[in-house]
């Protein structure tokens, strides 16, 4: 913008901004007395007109003499778009206030760094259970539609330092790998009765105080000597995720969480191994068995394991404000095309496109992010679509303490790219998965408490 040339007059503090194309235009002024201003304006205008050739429009402006009025041809006062503008302003304000932590996936330097006694945040592979003994029950670990046990998506270590009981706090996300179940799940999440909900995506929260029977109260030393205070429960040897309560009938060594996994394991490898195990272990002690059998995760369909590293979103902000240096040549026409305004309706798009555009703009600061974490009362999730958003009434109360839920974190679809999920017509795809957790992070009788999940799928409407 051209620099304002000031009209410094003692009587009025008037700044006249001169644009080469359009002539003098008054932008700011501190009015001491309206008469003085008017006189000054007239004087200035006449001055200018003597110096340069001006069209008669200026004289007309003088006659109307509103200081804030401008030549209509060049600059417009938007009246139709008030609502849109205000919406945009509000969005900007909201987003600036809360600081969001972003999660990025990285290959761990050493897979042993992701074991449970080091309290990792990870994605894919098997979960590092916080409470290794009281794992989720049989009913809560299966998909509500197909009955398959859920697969581990990611876990986030999110302690709350204000309370004693939440010194250690982990959030686990599980989901069914079938897209058909996810589509049915969409209907379920709109129903407002969380007790009777059967879902295919679940979030569990587990918390422990500093002194607990599973880990030492001292922080881990990260030098290879750390280990948990005790063994956990035996896990299923097919998925390595859930508790292996059922045992193989013949060898009595292989443990499974469900019949489906037993069938899968039997078909793939166990048919052959079973007899061999029976033969070798016939004479050994029963107490030895749990430790000598390593945790074999036989399933090949688990997602690849990554570690999640967190960074603050504001550390990426400096890049976004760089000025564009490649667009300095503007093709500006001398005459004014007033009705370009109508292009707004045609090309700027509808609600869905606009929310997608602002979503893209936000994640463009750090395109590799897979997780957005913000546990703040004012925090709002970043919605890719405008359709399919929950209202406040759609989010139920905590099923354990009856208190309200608040947004904690959301998973973004970049994770699908890192997991290498296939891109068939029926493969898994989502726009975002949002987790709402109990604001008070309540204690309950179960160790792993279920929280509310909202999944937004990408609509297939064209841009």
């Amino acid at each position, binding site marked *: 913008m051209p620099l304002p040339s000031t009209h410094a007059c003692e009587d009025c503090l008037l700044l006249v901004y001169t644009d080469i194309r359009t002539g003098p235009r008054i932008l700011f002024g501190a009015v001491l007395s309206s008469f003085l201003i008017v006189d000054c304006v007239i004087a200035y205008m006449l001055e200018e007109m003597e110096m340069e050739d001006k069209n008669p429009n200026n004289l007309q402006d003088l006659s109307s003499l509103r200081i804030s009025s401008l030549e209509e041809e060049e600059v417009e006062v938007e009246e139709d778009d008030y609502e849109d503008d205000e919406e945009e302003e509000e969005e900007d304000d909201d987003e600036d206030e809360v600081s969001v*932590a972003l999660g990025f996936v990285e290959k761990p330097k050493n897979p042993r760094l992701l074991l449970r006694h080091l309290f990792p945040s990870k994605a894919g592979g098997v979960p590092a259970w916080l409470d290794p003994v009281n794992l989720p029950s049989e009913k809560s670990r299966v998909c509500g539609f197909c009955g398959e046990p859920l697969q581990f998506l990611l876990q986030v270590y999110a302690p709350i*330092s204000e309370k004693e009981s939440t010194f250690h706090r982990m959030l686990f996300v599980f989901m069914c790998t079938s897209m058909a179940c996810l589509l049915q799940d969409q209907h379920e999440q709109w129903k407002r009765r969380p007790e009777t909900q059967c879902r295919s995506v679940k979030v569990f929260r587990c918390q422990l105080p500093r002194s607990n029977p599973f880990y030492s109260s001292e922080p881990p030393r990260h030098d290879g000597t750390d280990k948990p205070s005790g063994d956990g429960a035996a896990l299923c040897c097919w998925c390595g995720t859930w508790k292996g309560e059922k045992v193989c009938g013949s060898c009595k060594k292989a443990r499974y969480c469900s019949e489906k996994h037993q069938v899968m394991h039997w078909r793939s490898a166990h048919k052959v191994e079973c007899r061999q195990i029976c033969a070798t272990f016939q004479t050994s002690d029963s107490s030895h068995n749990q430790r000598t059998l390593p945790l074999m995760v036989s399933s090949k369909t688990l997602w690849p394991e990554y570690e999640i590293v967190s960074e603050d979103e504001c550390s990426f902000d400096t890049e976004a404000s760089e000025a564009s240096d490649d667009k300095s040549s503007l093709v500006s026409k001398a005459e004014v095309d007033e009705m*370009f305004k*109508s*292009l707004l309706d045609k090309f700027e798009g509808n609600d869905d496109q606009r929310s997608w555009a602002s979503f*893209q703009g936000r994640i463009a600061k750090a395109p590799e992010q897979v997780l957005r974490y913000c546990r703040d009362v004012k925090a709002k999730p970043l919605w890719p679509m405008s359709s399919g958003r929950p209202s406040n009434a759609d989010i139920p109360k905590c099923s354990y303490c009856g208190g309200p839920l608040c947004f904690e974190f959301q998973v973004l679809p970049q994770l*699908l790219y890192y997991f290498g999920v296939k*891109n*068939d*017509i029926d493969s898994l795809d989502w726009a975002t998965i949002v987790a709402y957790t109990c604001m008070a992070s309540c204690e309950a009788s179960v160790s792993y408490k279920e929280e509310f999940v909202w999944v937004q799928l990408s609509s297939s409407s064209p841009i």
Partner: protein
Amino acid sequence: MAERGGERGGDRGGFGRGFGRGGRGDRGRGRGGGRRGGGRREEEEKWVPVTKLGRLVKEGKIRSLEQIYLHSLPVKEHQIIETLLGPQLKDEVMKIMPVQKQTRAGQRTRFKAFVVVGDGNGHVGLGVKCSKEVATAIRGAIILAKLSVIPVRRGYWGNKIGKPHTVPCKVTGKCGSVTVRMVPAPRGSGIVAARVPKKVLQFAGIEDVFTSSRGSTKTLGNFVKATFDCLLKTYGFLTPDLWRETRFTKSPFQEYTDLLAKPTKAIILDDVEKLDA
């Protein structure tokens, strides 16, 4: 905030601050620092696709924009267009217009940018974006323009010698009261059109055309939309060379479930392109 973070860190010792407690300095990855040094080019290379189509394009399974057009798949990421059209895609800012909104404290000025993108070889797009800063508006408009890229069919006026240079037939597009009619022209005529649609047609890759417009062409929004509509219709017009029955092919999502290549797909695409030439 930093103080409180430090105190809490002290309480927890080396337990790890978890999420929402600041970055992990101890691991020393320095993601923020590294990316600031790299500048803009790194960001573009590090495109992580968000949609299924984006993932297919990034893998390289989709090689041309025509495959996307064939199945009417919605394109939601502009990097898809950039990857498929490559360096031939040029953009130009047609106009920056300041618009103002009256507030109690004076005027609030924003800038509206109009950008047209095209590769000069059958693809054009137009984008409009309004923003507080000129640079932001231009960037946003370029992205919107890339998302709205459409294919343009070209043909011959007379002898089918050389490359197609004009519209294949008389087409007309209408928006509001403005109708734009494009008529095939012989080689060397150039684009006979008003200033604004001429620019759009240049980006589309049409070399010669006669145009005729009617209605209130002063309303440039409608005028440009009408030329766009006209260009859209070039592929909607059934000419005798398209009389052959289409053999339906699988969409890119279905195609890559089987590991077999589908030879029929290649044949159909070649037909369409050869017929133009």
